[in-house]
């Protein structure tokens, strides 16, 4: 039987969400619990941008005064990701806090090994939220898994008073208040909210750069109602973050059929069972993208997705698979558009898939840029400087 593709697409153009699936707005419970004295709701500071979410509820995305809840995978293995987020915020002249009083959400380990439990996971989240509140800044979550897991934790704490009270007991022992943010905000939501301000500072022309987007599972599948959807992006059927930024920068976003598939990260698989990860990432994602969309770059918005889609390509090349496309976050992509240095800021030398043809297409002389970076490395090696500073990267 022939699949009626045209008829299906026509039907989807008028896509409307099933009203029976619309979740209740959790804010009523959030504030009721505050009224009962079980926690303080950390209000989104002004100014903020109101963003449309999957079922229409407007979400407040704060602009400045942000406490950067960093990602262990980004900072550890793809540090240009975190650096680009900070750099863009600095370029927009916005104040932020890069804390040391922050632990990982520990959810990567939890989803990999289950060597933790609901109370521990909730206590880790609440400790970080309290630390943000104490600093006077509002949490901005860098990692998609942290963001997804913290939304799960919020649901569990709302639904189960006994868990709330157990976590409150532990927080009292730590001398910290129980704090729940009014909105749990992912950095890619901030980039989406600020996409026009970012585009206004664009210095490199991205017309003709073909992009495919991998939306991160833990961003929009886990507690789906919080994710940003825009009727003007994919007809509101896929999350608008990342894509909205790429489009604002003038890149050409191309679709592909396996967009809903995960990247193959698997949490434990990426570390101890990578045959699955490599196979899935290349056969269900990269190869499909190459065949159907032939992108210049794959953009995504989570730690594990960048790592998986980037690193899995090397071994696949040995098998003559149809791979070979650079992978980065939209934060690095936006930073490059705004004139960021590919090595000093975006730290692309930590990536595996060949990004040099992309840089050339962007009009960046990567050989000259690498030579500049090497000059800085020599300064560090000779002891002339101990660290590369923010001033250095824009020199």
């Amino acid at each position, binding site marked *: 039987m022939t699949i009626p593709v045209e008829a299906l697409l026509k039907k989807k153009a008028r896509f409307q969400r099933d009203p029976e699936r619309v979740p209740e707005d959790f804010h009523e419970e959030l504030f009721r619990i505050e009224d009962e004295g079980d926690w303080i709701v950390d209000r989104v500071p002004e100014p903020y941008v109101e963003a449309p979410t999957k079922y229409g509820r407007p979400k407040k995305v704060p602009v400045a005064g942000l406490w950067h809840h960093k990602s262990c995978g980004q900072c550890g293995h793809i540090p240009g990701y975190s*650096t680009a987020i900070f750099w863009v915020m600095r370029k927009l002249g916005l104040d932020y806090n890069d*804390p040391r009083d922050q632990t990982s959400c520990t959810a*990567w380990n939890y989803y990999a*090994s*289950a060597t933790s439990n609901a109370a521990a996971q909730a206590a880790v989240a609440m400790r970080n939220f309290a630390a943000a509140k104490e600093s006077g800044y509002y949490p901005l979550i860098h990692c998609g898994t942290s963001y997804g897991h913290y939304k799960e934790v919020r649901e569990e704490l709302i639904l189960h008073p006994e868990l709330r009270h157990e976590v409150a007991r532990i927080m009292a022992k730590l001398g910290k208040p129980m704090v729940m943010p009014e909105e749990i905000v992912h950095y890619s939501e901030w980039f989406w909210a600020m996409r026009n301000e970012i585009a206004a500072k664009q210095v490199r022309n991205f017309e003709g750069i073909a992009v495919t987007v991998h939306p991160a599972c833990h961003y929009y*599948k886990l507690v789906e109602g919080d994710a940003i959807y825009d009727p003007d992006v994919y007809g509101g059927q896929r999350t608008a973050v990342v894509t909205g930024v790429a489009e604002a920068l003038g890149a050409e976003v191309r679709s592909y059929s396996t967009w809903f598939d995960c990247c193959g990260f698997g949490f434990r698989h990426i*570390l*101890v069972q990578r045959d699955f990860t490599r196979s899935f990432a290349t056969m269900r994602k990269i190869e499909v993208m190459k065949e159907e969309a032939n992108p210049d770059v794959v953009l995504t918005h989570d730690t594990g997705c960048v790592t998986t889609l980037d690193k899995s390509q090397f071994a696949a090349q040995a098998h003559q698979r149809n791979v070979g496309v650079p992978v980065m976050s939209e934060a690095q992509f936006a930073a490059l558009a705004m004139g960021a240095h590919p090595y000093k800021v975006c730290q692309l030398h930590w990536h595996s898939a060949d990004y040099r043809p992309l840089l050339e297409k962007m009009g960046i002389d990567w050989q000259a840029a690498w030579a500049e970076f090497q000059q800085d*490395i020599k300064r560090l090696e000779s002891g002339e400087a101990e660290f590369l500073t923010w001033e250095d990267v824009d020199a």
Partner: protein
Amino acid sequence: MAVTTSALYKSGHVAGFEDVPFEEKQRLFDEVRADMRFPDYLYGCYECGICVAACPSARFYDFSPRRVAQAAAREDVELVYQQMQEDIWECSQCFSCVRCPRGNNPGGIITIMREVAVNNGLASAKEALEGYSRIIYKIMSTGTQVSPDMLQPDAFPDWGPEVKDVSDNLDLWRRALPPETLHTTSTSWAVDDRTLVELYLIWFETGALDMIKGVDEGLHMILEEVMEERLEEEGIER
């Protein structure tokens, strides 16, 4: 009933895991069902297979989130035990399966089953966590999971020559990062001492540290010693 006869189940000698008395399987299932999240994750099953179609692990393994949801819903103690010994570690925990039209969360049920497998020292948990101890040690003792110094060519030979470049230049390349918190090599970022102590207290108070005992006693001993020493230095009583 210690021996299963239905064609749906694998008997112990075929299955590759030790069979146990039915009462033990029932006890493990009761532990899964007693988790406060269990009723939030399971509402019955249409058998529509949407979760399987969305599942990455189902494409590469003999694995089905639908079977997991059904076994739990039917309270099929034998099958749940088999899944705890064979299936649960294949799940990718991506939660693609939560597009279930009934609102089930098979990935969440698996999270609970894994916790029970770890808590009870099941063979599947021990096997799944072999080679993973270093990562548990890192996250529980330092508060960040994947440190830059874990990027070693012998650990990631399939990630290309860039891993060796990173490893060879690690100290310099970390110092070439403008954010001041990222100049670390053994942790993802610089974590305050006080923050770490608070994390240790969380592991002790919630029983998360004790969970390790059943799957890796040596690791548990090391972690407990490291954490107790640090808490003592801070003058904190548990």
